[in-house]
């Protein structure tokens, strides 16, 4: 039984470290192998508005040209200007060209890019490309997409029609061979018009920039010149809005973890994972030590006899290490299927292209090291005890009863440590669970049940120019459908943002706030409460808008009623508030309530999302959905019909939180399991050592429950000690996590007491098997004198 417990515990520890190592190795392998990488930087913008700082690595377009013309310290300049084409048509010699949908990852850049980022060139050369504007370099994968079966050499000189322009293939490069921040798949020169753009106050994630400086000193002068220019261009406007901005440089070596850059990885998360894996390995090792030590008295006789037969201590130690090593190997064998299972389970939590990068060699090395580490760590103490066994003593005493090996305090300390970790996880699990429940059940300010959402087709190939109101009107005919509305979903990332201002006696107030384009049924469909004024009508499109309570308050109106008819300016557009609605959560509940503007629209491009309220009776949903599909097929024959329930959509917003919590839940289960295994080992040992005492006490009149209490008391005290130590640690960790939510539960004492009771109960039941067994045994057996 002990061997089984050991292998299971170790397998879990190994499996966890295996997965974590893979992820960590993957994340840390980013952006290696660039020549003189320490001089390469990504440029980003840091702005300040009313004391709030924001970083963004989307830049104004003209900065690239300005740097090229004015900053001599820049050795290489690699803009990443994403290009979008509705249609791409590879021109084939063999058959008629068929247009394809536009692809992502098409990058407009300068030839410098290919010097900064080393690629394997399958055809063409970085020296000869981009001499003329209409040239394209493809990665192997894109080549196969456009010209299936063509070799890189054959592809040279072929033409592809991007939108309306014909481009010639001038190079083919291998797919990305390593993890990298450079994810472009097609490269072309930056269009002349874009290059000469001079809008310094417009930022977009489509325009990013890497530079390679001549030396370390160039950094300062680079920033000085670039920021001076930025100030010259935007300073005046910024001052007007009480804001400021500057460029900053993010070194390539740590770019993947730089929190100022979009889409990067939070390095703290990785440290957290490493921590969890380390704890699990440590817990498993502690278990092994505990259980192995518990067995030493039982093996003492065997060892004693072996020693009398002349076995050397050295050899004894060695064979014990080998035993541990074999157990670790068995654990590794078990960890393999366990890992596949876990990776399946956490698939969505792992980096997407983790599987693409082969790192079996470092992983193999890591596992070997891990096993050696674990076996040495786990075997040292028991081996030391084995060596201390005194032959004469062992052979004199019968059974394991009277022997005590090693310091009990040491083992008790390890139990306290195990339960301390377990308890931190237990508390975290409980509080995270409560918080997520709270988020999902909190009233967001609108109705979210029984709503179906569809994205209307927008690709040219799928959608004829159909007015979105057509499908909406058709759906009115069905009794199973209570209503439908068009416009940007509430609680979603889809919205625009704009500056709105009011003019009053005290001066001008300007606020940047998100806006959603909606139709006239929207407010009703989502049950958004109108506080004053009226709903918008489609005829309001020229001027009338709805604003949320927070929006009017920020703009300086005293009450919703007062705001009705209020004039609001957006640039030189003059708008009028026709209604004020109750605040609703626009994004999700991590963020605070934001002001919101609702704009009426009849424009097909704005009204791409159709929301349908189904009948209150779920039995009619099937029929309702069937009607929607029928109308969809009639209007959009080429587009596939798909829908999503809106409450599911909301759940998706918390997906990363839910996944994080499932990692924590699993870790909790594992740490509790491992800790209890350790407890079983220790209790088994001490009950064996106290058999005689138990017998005496029974003869003297103790009851079974009295004995169970006696045996459990000591260990429950240890567990209680761990809980007391764990609670402040858990409180601190949970507090940190909750800080990232604008809406959160109040942490209160029972969230610590209830998990504590649970853990005590689990510990008690774990021990009860051994202690009840001991307490029920016949004292005659343990007290026999022979």
């Amino acid at each position, binding site marked *: 039984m002990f061997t089984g417990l050991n292998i299971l515990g170790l397998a879990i520890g190994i499996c966890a470290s295996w997965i974590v190592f893979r992820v960590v190795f993957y994340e840390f392998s980013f952006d290696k192998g660039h020549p003189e990488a320490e001089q390469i930087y990504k440029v980003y913008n840091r702005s300040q508005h009313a004391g709030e700082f924001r970083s963004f690595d989307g830049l104004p377009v003209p900065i690239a040209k300005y740097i090229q013309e004015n900053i001599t310290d820049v050795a290489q300049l690699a803009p990443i200007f994403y290009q979008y084409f509705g249609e791409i048509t590879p021109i084939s010699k063999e058959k008629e060209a068929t247009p394809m949908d536009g692809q992502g990852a098409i990058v407009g850049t300068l030839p410098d890019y290919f010097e900064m980022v080393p690629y394997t060139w399958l055809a063409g050369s970085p020296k000869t490309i981009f001499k003329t504007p209409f040239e394209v370099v493809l990665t192997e994968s894109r080549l196969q997409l456009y010209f299936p079966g063509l070799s890189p050499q054959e592809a040279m000189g072929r033409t592809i029609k991007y939108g309306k322009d014909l481009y010639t293939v001038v190079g083919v490069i291998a797919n990305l061979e390593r993890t990298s921040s450079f994810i472009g798949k097609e490269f072309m020169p930056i269009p002349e018009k874009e290059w000469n753009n001079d809008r310094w106050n417009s930022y977009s994630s489509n325009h990013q920039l890497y530079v390679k400086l001549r030396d370390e000193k160039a950094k300062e002068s680079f920033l000085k010149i670039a920021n001076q220019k930025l100030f010259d261009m935007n300073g005046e406007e910024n001052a007007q809005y009480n804001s400021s901005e500057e460029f900053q440089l993010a070194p390539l070596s740590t770019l993947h973890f730089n929190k100022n850059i979009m889409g990067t990885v939070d390095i703290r998360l990785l440290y957290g994972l490493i921590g969890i894996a380390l704890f699990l390995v440590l817990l498993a090792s502690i278990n092994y030590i505990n259980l192995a030590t518990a067995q030493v008295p039982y093996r003492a006789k065997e060892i004693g006899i072996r020693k009398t037969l002349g076995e050397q201590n050295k050899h004894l130690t060695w064979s014990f290490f080998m035993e541990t090593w074999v157990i670790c190997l068995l654990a590794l064998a078990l960890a393999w299927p366990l890992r596949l299972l876990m990776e399946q389970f956490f698939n969505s939590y792992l980096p997407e292209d983790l599987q693409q990068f082969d790192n079996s060699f470092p992983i193999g090395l890591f596992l070997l090291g891990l096993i050696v580490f674990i076996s040495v760590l786990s075997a040292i103490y028991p081996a030391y005890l084995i060596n201390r066994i005194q032959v004469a003593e062992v052979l004199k005493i019968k059974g394991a009863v009277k022997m005590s090996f090693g310091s009990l305090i040491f083992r008790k300390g390890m139990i306290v440590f195990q339960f301390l970790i377990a308890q931190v996880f237990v508390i975290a699990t409980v509080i995270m669970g409560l918080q997520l429940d709270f988020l999902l059940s909190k009233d967001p300010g609108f109705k979210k049940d029984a709503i179906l959402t569809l994205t209307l087709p927008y690709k040219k190939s799928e959608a004829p120019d159909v007015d979105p109101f057509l499908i909406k009107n058709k759906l009115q005919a069905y009794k199973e459908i209570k209503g439908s509305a068009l416009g940007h979903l509430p609680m979603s990332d889809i919205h625009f943002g704009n500056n709105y201002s009011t003019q009053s006696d005290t001066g001008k107030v300007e606020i940047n706030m998100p806006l959603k384009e909606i139709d006239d049924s929207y407010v009703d469909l989502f049950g958004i409460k109108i506080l004053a004024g009226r709903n918008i009508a489609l005829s309001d499109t020229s001027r009338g808008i709805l604003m949320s309570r927070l929006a009017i308050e920020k703009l300086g109106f005293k009450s919703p009623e007062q705001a009705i008819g209020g004039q609001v300016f957006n640039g030189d557009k003059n708008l009028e508030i026709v209604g004020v609605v109750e605040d609703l959560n626009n994004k999700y509940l991590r963020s605070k309530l934001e002001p919101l503007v609702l704009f009426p629209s009849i424009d097909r491009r704005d009204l791409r999302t159709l929301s349908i309220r189904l009948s209150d009776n779920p039995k009619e949903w099937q029929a309702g959905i069937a009607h929607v599909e029928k109308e969809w097929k009639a209007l959009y024959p080429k587009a596939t019909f798909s829908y999503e329930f809106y409450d599911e959509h909301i759940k998706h917003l918390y997906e990363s939180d839910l996944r994080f919590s499932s990692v924590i839940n699993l870790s909790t289960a594992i740490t509790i399991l491992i800790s209890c295994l350790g407890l079983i080992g220790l209790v088994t040992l001490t009950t064996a050592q106290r058999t005689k005492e138990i017998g*005496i006490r029974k003869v*003297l009149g103790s009851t079974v429950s009295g004995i169970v209490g006696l045996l459990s008391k000591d260990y429950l005290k240890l567990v209680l000690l761990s809980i007391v130590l764990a609670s402040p640690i858990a409180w601190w960790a949970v507090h940190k996590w909750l800080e990232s939510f604008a809406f959160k539960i109040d942490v209160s004492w029972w969230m610590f007491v209830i998990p504590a009771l649970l853990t005590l109960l689990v510990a008690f039941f774990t021990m009860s098997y051994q202690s009840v067994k001991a307490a029920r045994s016949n004292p005659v057996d343990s*007290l026999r004198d022979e």
Partner: protein
Amino acid sequence: MIKLEQLFKWYSQGNNRSFVLKDINLSIEAGDFVSIMGPSGSGKSTLLNVIGMLDEPNEGKYYFMGEDVLAMKTKKRNQLFQAHMGYVFQSYHLIDELTVYENIETPLIYKNLSSADRKAIVSDLLDRFHIVGKKDLFPAQLSGGQQQIVGIARALAGSPKVLLADEPTGNLNSKQGEEIMELFTQLNKDGVTIIQVTHSEKNAAYGHRILEMLDGQIK
């Protein structure tokens, strides 16, 4: 006081029964001092354990103070025996982690006596057996004879009517053995019924009556 009728105890080995006690009929009056003798494996310890209800017979009747013990509910039986029996062992079986004082006190705790009562009883016993000076020592710090005296003091703490002793002098030298036997004689004179198992003819002679056992039967 104690009456055993047609008592059997056996272990099953496949279809065969190996008898440890075979048709035991025995009657012991209050105030008696009985020595049970016999070679190893003759069943004398088992008989003592059955009398003390640490072990149950497979068949037969057992009357203790006129009550049918085997027909009683376990809880009631335990109470009965706890109140009236004291046990003394060959290897003393003191609890190593407790002091002399605490060892003697333990059975009283299980009888739910108040701490004042316990203190009075224990002090009295310490006095009676002249071990007041040793009350704070641990068993390991005492000689075998002293440990057995503590064992007897502990057995007497609950003021039992019957004292069951399994080879009480087995681990002691002859001088210490004599002391214990004299102690038993004195206790018997004070009214305690004593049943002892012993190998030694000399010690057996302290009893009023000697039962010889062989192969699970009383000769």
